[in-house]
């Protein structure tokens, strides 16, 4: 049935004339149209039928196409143009929001990392080093650098909101440095305290960006700026010198490891 959703209505009516009458019953007048290139799925969506009517219409069309079969009616994705405007980030801002997802997954794992971590073992030390590498490379060099070196320059860098964001990044770096210093001393308590403080701090920082900074910036970027910003982000990502997927794999492995430990 899915293939018919993506076919022109005239073609379908020519093949199955009964469908013209079925559409008429729902006040969908495709029959007299001399062109008929509209797709069946678009026609069903645009006429704003109730869910029940849509199911009934689709069931009748399915029966006309396959009279001998019991057809499962596919759901038609609702088009958004007839609804009030929904907020969707411009592509470069969406890229930053998406990058937050991996950072938030790391943040969510920190309490387990702290519980599990034994820095007297090589494995324990490596876990902290890998976590710090994710923060420094992915969160800072890959993500924060795009904000500081590119995005913020589209706005007044002396504005309070940008200053606060820059200070947040500096503070986050200080927590990470403290973790590494503590690791050198073998001070597990300090490692835990700084990682947990980083977690709490960055959670708030990401919340501020997702809920305040990014929507505000998104609203204030012109179409031309969105295009330029996107190209600059693409260039920066290509020049970063490492694959961000590496960090996604690290998180996936860590999530699986802790999941197994919980069992």
């Amino acid at each position, binding site marked *: 049935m899915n293939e018919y959703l993506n076919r022109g209505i005239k073609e379908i009516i020519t093949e199955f004339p009964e469908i013209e009458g079925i559409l008429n019953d729902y006040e969908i007048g495709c029959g007299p149209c001399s062109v008929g290139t509209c797709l069946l799925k678009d026609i069903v969506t645009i006429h704003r039928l109730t869910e029940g009517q849509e199911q009934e219409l689709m069931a009748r069309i399915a029966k006309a196409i396959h009279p001998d079969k019991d057809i499962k009616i596919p759901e038609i994705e609702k088009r958004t143009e007839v609804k009030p405007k929904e*907020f969707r980030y411009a592509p470069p801002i969406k890229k930053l929001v998406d990058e937050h997802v991996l950072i938030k997954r790391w943040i969510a794992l920190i309490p387990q990392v702290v519980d599990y971590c034994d820095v007297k073992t090589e494995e324990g030390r490596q876990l902290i080093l890998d976590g710090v590498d994710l923060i420094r490379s992915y969160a800072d060099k890959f993500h924060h650098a795009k904000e500081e070196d590119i995005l913020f320059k589209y706005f007044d860098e002396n504005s309070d909101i940008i200053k606060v964001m820059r200070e947040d990044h500096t503070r986050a770096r200080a927590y990470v440095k403290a973790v590494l210093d503590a690791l050198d001393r073998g001070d597990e308590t300090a490692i835990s305290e700084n990682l947990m403080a980083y977690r709490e701090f960055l959670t708030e920082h990401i919340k501020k960006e997702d809920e305040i900074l990014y929507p505000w910036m998104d609203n204030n970027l012109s179409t031309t700026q*969105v295009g330029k910003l996107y190209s600059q982000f*693409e260039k920066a990502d290509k020049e970063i010198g490492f694959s961000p997927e590496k960090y996604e794999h690290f998180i996936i492995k860590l999530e699986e490891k802790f999941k197994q430990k919980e069992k």
Partner: protein
Amino acid sequence: MTQFEGCPGSRVMNFEEQDGNDADQSVGKIKSQLGQWPIQMHLISPTAPYYQGADVLLTADCVAYALGDFHREYLKGKSIAIACPKLDAEQDIYQEKIKAWFDDAKINTLTVLIMQVPCCMGLMNLVQQAAQSAERKVPTKCVVVGVQGDILQEEWV
């Protein structure tokens, strides 16, 4: 058979003086913002100088008539091509030209303006297919215009 009003794409509607308010009409001549020729999708070259690195509008034919402020709000500062996904022939050529905008002309952004009628969605589908086959990604916005010139949707896709 029930009474119905036909396809929304060709249904007869009359909006004349529906609100009786013309207070916001501009006075005097309004300058055209069109900065190029040709504009029809079959006639344009996708690598023409005015498309290089440009913010491009791909507009369904009817849009400029429905949208009162088309020149000032949308066309200003942009390059354009127009097409009708319902009536135009050989639309596979359109798809190739859109792909060439992405990969060869390296356009900055693409804004697709379509009417709310279902046949117009074909233009957006063409763009999506071209975008999938292109090597380069370009921020693309879809604007859906109502038959009385209201903006029903404007969002990045």
